[in-house]
């Protein structure tokens, strides 16, 4: 494997570096995780010496985390790839027999494969990206190429969270919205270990604590943030939906909910037709202007806009022989059965706790509002002299999302928040620009077969939010995408379904592909489930001895497990060596107070054999003459830096990747002509841009007339129309109708597919057990297996970092002592952990901070021996465990095709549904193990000591 001498602080022994004449401080954006904090990097003697937070940064406000500071050691990682690599012809894929090749050979080879694909069937390229922060660019690239088969990592990550939020309120938690802990008095966090906004969440919790706010954590495990909770609510995994429904039950029963908010800003008063068996069943009664009809206080039926929020929430109505009920009435009917006692049986949370917490949140919201002196005007034209907020905030993440009932659970959470009136008011959930968008955002994926033709760019975006079955990418029952996104099985797969790709490509279902291109995702290890089989599928051959996935191209900066499975590897720079944009077009770094974006700039020069991945992709695009990249055969962009500055969402739109310093003078913001010196301007301004929204536009933005006009002006939203919150999700009902055979447009044929739609596409939230519970063997695996993110590691990236790896290099399986004693297992014991997928060994560690029905460990600590530049004897491969080996990737299927262990609405991977049983192990070592390979840099793997200092100061 490739070797270089460029990237090391010092070799063995002591080597004090003198303080260089010119010490530089460079501002850029961190990429040790997805949080994207502003960092100041001190460079001495062309070596990175200190990384600290930028005080003015709207994201991290001067602080930085363990990963951020340890960026130094990532820069000097032993796993750095330093030249393009190619699998030795004739050697087997997966063994890591890669040799350096020159760039021209690598580019030519890949361009050749891609050219063939593009000329015949562009869908034969599958391009999937992982922890990617340039999705706008990557999506654009794939669109120009013409393949439907592109997505980032959302499918195995948290599409449930994104989609449920987008279909409910046109925003979500995560990068789309945020609990306002500056004003909240009561805060409930469900299923969060660390989450994307790492530093901002810590800063916010700190503010809540300063102000004496009450902090409730709902989580099977108490750790991290949970340690600070005033109350820990240990819940059995996969049951939060029941908890939330029961809380709504109590709020409803006690009248502790915001009726005015519901009828003014949500569609809860909308009249839903009750016509079982009819095509109009469950759809809103709409006015000729397509407005939802409501019954006003006089019992007249009027469009919602005319009723000015006076629509009734309850009742049974008939009009011209049709029966209608307000959406809220429908939910109330359902809530009647969702008693605290019912929920206690499911969640293992005592009913008294459920009632107490519901009363706390309801009372705080309704009886103790926060009042800001800011006037604002709503879309009905009513002026509010003050901004009144309900200071009850929530935050949730993968603990809800990563279950196969996650979509509906999160829908329940958003409906609960709507009931409490705590959407975008002070102290509640607050949008981050450019959100709110219409719920769901008015973008649908290109869904016709004609959209994907040889030598042609796709006219519409590849990903979006289907509004009805007609937007799905299906031909009959057959999916059109290799990942089955937008298929009948996973209709609202708004982020694509990366976790389905390898198996489908292996199965050649719906078709075989030619090239799998992977950027920044470790699919041969910690982001796959059923890992060992996945690895086998990556290297499987057909009868003729050809690989079933003929070509695998990997763009990575480090020698990950996946690199060993590549045929060609393009080495990427580190984040301290390239231009980048953290764009509003992508995943915003905005704060509730206003839009923000930032750049990365090269702090030090990359090793000579290394190029930024985006530059490589642009080079490929230029060689392939992809439409959006060439102008009459002349390349428009040579590098990603060009692209960042010059590209526009559509020609002349004035909207590009970066919103600050636009226009020829660099004086425009948000909309303005491209500025070829924009990056310089950012570099001069500490690498970020932030604009505060005017106070009267800051709150209730979905309903704030001035905000909507402004947001339309700056092209956040295509029209200034009100954004009505979707208490009742009509798009879901259209899918249900399709399942019932009642939808006039596309509908599935197979009964199993129909049943899925009819069951899970409920327009109102409900709780159902995770799909794993329906497996015949579910009873034999009584414990749920979870992972949590450690605050010090970002997925697989921590282990090649000499400092971070010291903080966590092996992971025991944490178990409640009561649960262990019931199984006669003791602390420190080696056990077999078996799921229906297979079994593996683990060492137990007792912890009372975990619910007895759950076992858990840290995510992505284990490494394949020799990967990541580590010595094959490193504890990460000798003592750490990767639970992905036994997380099942598929469910028992009702039809004749594979059914993945995904949420039936969005296709989100159901990581946290895995069920296991434990029993003593005679084997006292980690099992299974994969074959060892030589580390990229054997010399570094053998280093005896790492020590350096730049200064000779008082201490010496």
């Amino acid at each position, binding site marked *: 494997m490739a070797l270089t001498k460029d990237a090391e602080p010092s070799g063995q022994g002591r080597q004090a570096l003198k303080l260089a004449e010119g010490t530089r401080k460079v501002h850029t954006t961190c990429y040790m995780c997805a949080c994207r904090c502003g960092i100041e990097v001190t460079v001495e003697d062309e070596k990175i010496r200190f990384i600290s937070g930028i005080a003015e940064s709207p994201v991290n406000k001067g602080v930085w985390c363990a990963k951020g500071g340890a960026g130094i050691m990532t820069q000097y990682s032993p796993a750095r790839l330093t030249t393009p690599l190619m699998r030795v012809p004739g050697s087997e894929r997966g063994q890591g027999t890669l040799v350096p090749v020159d760039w021209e050979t690598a580019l030519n080879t890949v361009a050749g494969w891609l050219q063939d694909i593009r000329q015949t069937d562009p869908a034969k390229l599958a391009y999937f990206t992982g922890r990617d922060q340039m999705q706008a660019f990557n999506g654009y690239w794939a669109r120009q190429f013409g393949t439907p088969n592109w997505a980032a990592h959302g499918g195995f990550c948290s599409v449930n969270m994104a989609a449920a939020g987008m279909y409910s309120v046109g925003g979500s938690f995560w990068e789309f919205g945020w609990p306002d802990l500056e004003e909240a008095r009561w805060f409930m966090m469900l299923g969060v270990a660390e989450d994307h906004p790492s530093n901002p969440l810590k800063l916010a919790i700190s503010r809540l604590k300063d102000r004496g706010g009450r902090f409730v954590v709902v989580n099977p495990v108490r750790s991290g943030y949970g340690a600070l909770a005033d109350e820990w609510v240990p819940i059995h995994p996969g049951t939060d939906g029941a908890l939330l429904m029961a809380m709504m039950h109590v709020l409803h029963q006690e009248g502790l909910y915001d009726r005015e908010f519901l009828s003014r800003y949500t569609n809860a008063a909308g009249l839903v037709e009750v016509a079982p068996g009819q095509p109009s069943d469950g759809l809103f009664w709409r006015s000729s202007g397509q407005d939802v009809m409501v019954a006003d206080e006089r019992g007249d039926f009027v469009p919602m806009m005319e009723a000015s929020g006076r629509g009734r929430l309850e009742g049974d109505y008939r009009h011209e022989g049709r029966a209608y009920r307000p959406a809220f009435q429908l939910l109330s009917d359902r809530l009647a059965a969702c008693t605290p006692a019912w929920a206690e049986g499911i969640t*293992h949370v005592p009913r008294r706790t459920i009632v107490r917490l519901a009363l706390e949140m309801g009372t705080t919201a309704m009886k103790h509002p926060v009042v800001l002196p800011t006037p604002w005007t709503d879309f009905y034209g009513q002026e509010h002299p003050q901004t009144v907020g309900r200071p009850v905030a929530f935050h949730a993440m993968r603990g809800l999302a990563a279950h196969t009932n996650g979509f509906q659970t999160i829908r329940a959470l958003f409906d609960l928040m709507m009931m409490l009136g705590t959407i975008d008011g002070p102290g509640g959930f607050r949008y981050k620009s450019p959100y709110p968008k219409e719920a769901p955002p008015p973008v649908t994926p290109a869904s016709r077969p004609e959209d994907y033709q040889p030598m042609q760019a796709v006219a519409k975006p590849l990903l979006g939010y289907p509004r009805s079955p007609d937007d799905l990418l299906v031909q009959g029952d057959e999916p059109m995408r290799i990942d089955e996104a937008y298929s009948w099985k996973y209709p609202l797969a708004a982020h694509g379904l990366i976790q389905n790709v390898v198996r489908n490509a292996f199965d050649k279902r719906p078709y075989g592909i030619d090239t799998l291109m992977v950027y920044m995702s470790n699919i041969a290890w910690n982001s796959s489930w059923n890992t060992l089989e996945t690895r086998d599928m990556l290297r499987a051959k057909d009868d003729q001895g050809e690989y079933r996935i003929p070509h695998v191209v990997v763009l990575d900066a480090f020698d990950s497990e996946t690199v060993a499975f590549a045929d060609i590897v393009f080495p990427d720079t580190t984040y301290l060596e390239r231009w980048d944009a953290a764009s509003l077009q992508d995943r915003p770094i905005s704060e509730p107070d206003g839009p923000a974006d930032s750049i990365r700039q090269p702090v030090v020069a990359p090793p000579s054999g290394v190029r930024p991945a985006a530059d490589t992709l642009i080079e490929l695009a230029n060689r392939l003459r992809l439409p959006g990249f060439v102008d009459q055969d002349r390349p428009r962009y040579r590098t990603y830096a060009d692209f960042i500055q010059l590209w526009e969402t559509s020609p002349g739109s004035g909207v590009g990747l970066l919103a600050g310093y636009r226009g020829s003078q660099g004086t425009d913001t948000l909309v303005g002509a491209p500025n070829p010196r924009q990056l310089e301007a950012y570099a001069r301004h500490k690498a970020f841009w932030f604009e505060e929204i005017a106070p009267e536009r800051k709150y209730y933005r979905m309903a704030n007339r001035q905000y909507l006009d402004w947001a339309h002006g700056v092209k956040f939203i295509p029209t200034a129309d009100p954004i009505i919150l979707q208490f009742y999700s009509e798009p879901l009902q259209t899918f249900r109708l399709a399942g019932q055979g009642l939808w006039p447009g596309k509908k599935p044929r197979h009964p199993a597919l129909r049943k899925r739609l009819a069951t899970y596409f409920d327009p109102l939230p409900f709780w159902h057990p995770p799909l794993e519970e329906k497996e015949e063997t579910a009873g034999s695996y*009584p*414990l749920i297996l979870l992972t949590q993110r450690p605050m010090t590691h970002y997925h697989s990236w921590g282990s090649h970092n000499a400092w971070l790896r*010291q*903080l*966590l*290099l*092996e*992971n*025991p399986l944490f178990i*409640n*002592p*009561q*649960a262990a*004693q*019931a199984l006669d297992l*003791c*602390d*420190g014991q080696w056990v077999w952990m078996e799921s229906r997928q297979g079994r593996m060994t683990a060492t137990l*560690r*007792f*912890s*009372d*901070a975990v619910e*007895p*029905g759950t076992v858990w460990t840290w995510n992505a600590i284990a490494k394949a021996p020799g990967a990541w530049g580590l010595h094959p004897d490193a504890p990460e491969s000798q003592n750490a465990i990767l639970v992905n080996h036994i997380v099942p990737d598929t469910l028992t299927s009702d039809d004749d095709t594979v059914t993945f262990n995904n949420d039936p609405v969005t296709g989100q991977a159901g990581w946290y549904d895995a069920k296991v049983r434990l029993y003593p192990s005679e084997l006292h070592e980690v099992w299974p193990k994969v074959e060892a390979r030589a580390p990229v840099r054997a010399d570094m793997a053998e280093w005896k000591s790492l020590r350096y200092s730049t200064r000779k100061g008082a201490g010496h």
Partner: protein
Amino acid sequence: MRPTWPLLALTLLQGLSAGMLCLAAVALLAPAMDIPRTTLFVWQGAAWVAGALGGMASFFHMHRLAAARYVLRRLGSSWLSREALSTAVYMIVASFVLLVHLFWPRDLGAWDAVSGLAAVLGLAAVYITAMLYATIPAMRSWHSPVTVLVFVCAGLLSGGAADYALVAGRSSDLALRAAVMGLAAVFGILFSFQARLFRQAAGGVLSATGTGLSGRPYRLQDSGTSRRPYRTQTQIWPELPARLRRWLYALVFGLAVAIPWAAAIWLPGWAGGILLLASVGLGVSLSRWLFFGDATHSSRVWFADQPKTPSPVRREGKRTYKMQ
């Protein structure tokens, strides 16, 4: 704490040397013991060699000889400064003992005088060395007068055993034999006190950590940085498994008390002498190894990885729970 060889060598050899000189002085000043003067001189010579080796070992414990010249700077407060001084003075006087014997007229009594002085200084050096350990409140296992008594007794015992071995072939001096047997018995008693102290220390550290976390005792949940011992934290040393510790205690008693008694009673002559010395030497060394290696420092609790033994969180009886 990490029982490094220079520490073991320094403390053991210093004690041995002082012990041998002490017995020599006693024999010299109390002629009842009836040991030939040449034998006494051999004892003293051997003591000098032991002391010199111990002194040399101490240099290996210093990691920066360049700074050795500063070592006497804190005589006012540092028992280590005092140790350096006392050991040096002791060695100088011990050298005088030899020189005086060789070059000074016998009848002037000078030899007797310096021998006595050297013995006192030797005892003082052992005392100071022991005080170095005994005065550290953070070393929970050492912070006690027992440490001083054990050090002194171990020195006398090993010195006595060495002296005994050096004469055993020729003499059957009852007084010396009785002295060695007595010292072994006292050592056995002191060692059991020390063992008790060590167990108390290991249990006691949890009691007052002042963290404000309710419901002690608690369980440390770190992996990664809490993996001990740290190379860079020499005071953190893994706790011995209780079973092994019990075996080692028994071994110390066997080697330092039982076998010497048996040898002294039933095996006269060279064989007995050498067996006695070897046994005492091993026993005292093992006890010293345990002194360092099994000591509890107040910080250990902060770093201890979860021991691979049942949880320290005590509970009353088994409780069952509902698994679905």
